[in-house]
């Protein structure tokens, strides 16, 4: 089976979808000749032509808004936001329009579209090329919000997202694009939206995470194992709808829980996970629910010292796990 990194898996997913269904098209800044600034769409304009691979004007609200219109008329647009930091001008179109179209029209109209965006830090992107702003969309019923952490999942989830009849926000961690390779089948397969995965089984505590942080959690778990602590790592994969069962089942088993995320700590996605546990598994807990998260500062600084300081790391996660085991 071919081995692919995440960016290749994503490009392959788009290619497979475009080959199978001529309603699928892509639009975004530099997605055409340039193949996207991360090369997620490389070669597609040559293959599918300018009318299905649109180098859009530099205007995110229009990228989302025009994609909504395309979807209303039966196309299956995949819109790319060049960086998740720059999705903000499109937030009105996404939240007011895409997320509410089916609901407000009582099922008469719908918006089957995907919005892809590279997010996350640790790539020397400074304040505006490192953000993790998924909270905005996770709080928004009518949307789905997906964040893969492996090449295999990225392809399978993206194919699910493209086929999904509702708008899906699809966040790809920039640092994962080329970090890991694994076997990724050719052709069509899907990973279902809304299902978390136990990335590593364990009995002593549960670390719940998504995106790059899953790998940091796994590293931490490996280190903890050396001291005889068996951490279970849950990869959420989808933030909305959240797979409560997988989370709660794990926590009920281990009796200790920690959420790791890179977004600002306050009201980041981990707040919801923690609240769910506090509501549904409180009597199972032997320890407080910890959060290891991005700092509560406006965004991740550029210089490497402060970038590291901002981000959760395997070491920080392991330390928190030790504290959790001690309480």
């Amino acid at each position, binding site marked *: 089976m071919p081995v692919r990194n995440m960016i290749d898996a994503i490009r392959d997913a788009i290619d497979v979808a475009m080959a199978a269904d001529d309603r699928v098209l892509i639009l975004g800044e530099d997605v055409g000749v340039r193949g996207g600034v991360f090369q997620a769409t490389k070669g597609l304009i040559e293959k599918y032509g300018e009318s299905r691979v649109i180098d859009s004007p530099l205007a995110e*609200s229009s990228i989302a808004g025009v994609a*909504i219109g395309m979807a209303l008329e*039966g196309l299956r647009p995949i819109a790319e936001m060049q960086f998740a930091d720059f999705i903000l001008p499109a937030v009105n179109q996404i939240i007011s329009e895409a997320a509410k179209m089916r609901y407000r029209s009582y*099922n008469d109209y719908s918006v089957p579209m995907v919005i892809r965006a590279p997010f996350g830090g640790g790539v020397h992107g400074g304040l505006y090329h490192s953000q993790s702003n998924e909270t905005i969309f996770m709080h928004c019923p009518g949307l789905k919000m997906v964040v893969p952490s492996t090449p295999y999942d990225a392809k399978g989830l993206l194919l699910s997202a493209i086929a999904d009849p509702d708008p899906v926000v699809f966040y790809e961690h920039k640092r994962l694009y080329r970090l890991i390779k694994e076997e990724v089948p050719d052709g069509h397969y899907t990973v279902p939206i809304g299902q978390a995965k136990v990335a590593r089984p364990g009995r002593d505590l549960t670390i719940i995470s998504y995106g790059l942080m899953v790998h940091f959690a796994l590293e931490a778990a490996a280190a903890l194992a050396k001291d005889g602590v068996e951490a279970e790592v849950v990869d959420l994969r989808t933030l909305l709808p959240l797979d409560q069962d997988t989370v709660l089942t794990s926590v009920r088993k281990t009796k200790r829980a920690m959420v790791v995320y890179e977004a600002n700590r306050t009201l980041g996605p981990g707040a919801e996970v923690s609240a769910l546990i506090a509501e549904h598994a409180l009597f199972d807990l032997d320890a407080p629910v910890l959060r290891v998260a991005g700092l509560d500062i406006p965004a991740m600084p550029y210089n490497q010292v402060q970038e590291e300081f901002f981000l959760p790391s395997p070491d920080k996660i392991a330390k928190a796990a030790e504290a959790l085991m001690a309480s």
Partner: protein
Amino acid sequence: MAKTQPKAPQGLSQDGLVQIYKDMLVARLLDERMWTLNRIGKAPFVISCQGQEASQVGWAAALRPDDVVVPYYRDMGVAIQRGMTIRELMLAFFGKQGDPNSNGRQMPGHFGCRRLNMVSGSSVVIVQMLHAVGVAYAMKMRKQDRVAAVAFGEGATAEGDFHEALNWASIYRLPVLFVCENNGYAISVPQKKEMAVENVSERARAYDMPGVTVDGNDVLAVYEAAVEAVERGRRGDGPTLLELKTYRVVPHSSDDDDRVYRSREEVEAWKQRDPIKQYQLTLIEMGLWDAQRDQAVRAEIQAEIEAAVEEADRAPFPAAEDALRFVYADEEGR
């Protein structure tokens, strides 16, 4: 001075000419009734098309049923021209079960109905322009001769999406009819505080796009200008920005008091230019209408409205749990 006989635009039959009048009349009478229902506490909210009926019915009449229409909250005239019934509009007005627009989820004035190829709108101004552009992109990609038509107020043109939509449509020469119903105010804010130019149509040049301003109270002028723009779109010659100068003769909505921001003289002057009265005269001059028919038709419409009021008033609200449906595509149908 001998007045020249009014001439019907090409492509409009006598029935078509009369139908336009009837649609305008339905819009007016229904709108008036909604205000009285609001004033007696039967419904919390009205937003009104009064004064803009010629603009609305005029541009909508230039389209085919298979074209896509993206109206804004003031466009009851458009909804009526497309075929939404008095009964349906009254159910929406009361927020009742069976409202085809949103089944009582949205405030009145939020039109949308797949049967009529009329895309559902939100309360958020101008966003719909981009939807029309996307729809038109799909039409052009499929080499259809359909067009998308989208309406908005002149105040809303200050929003960034206005610019982004015109920019896209012009780059890709898409078949879009952009209709600005310029009634001179955004709630209380007069046009001179909204923009430095006198005509919204002047903005079209910034996109190498035709921009046209016409008297929005002259329904046949509106119709003709819209037809020309629609044909341009069908021919593949790209979008048009059409500005209709008109006026809303009532407050912005039932929550508004327009006396604080405009003089009664101004309102009166515009009432003298009432689009329905004007068009009635035209039809009479054309020999297509008379006072008797007018009375009969008004009575018919009023009767239909009263029946609709009664039905909508009695109709149930949607069930509470119905609010949980259609967040996602979990079920078919409605």
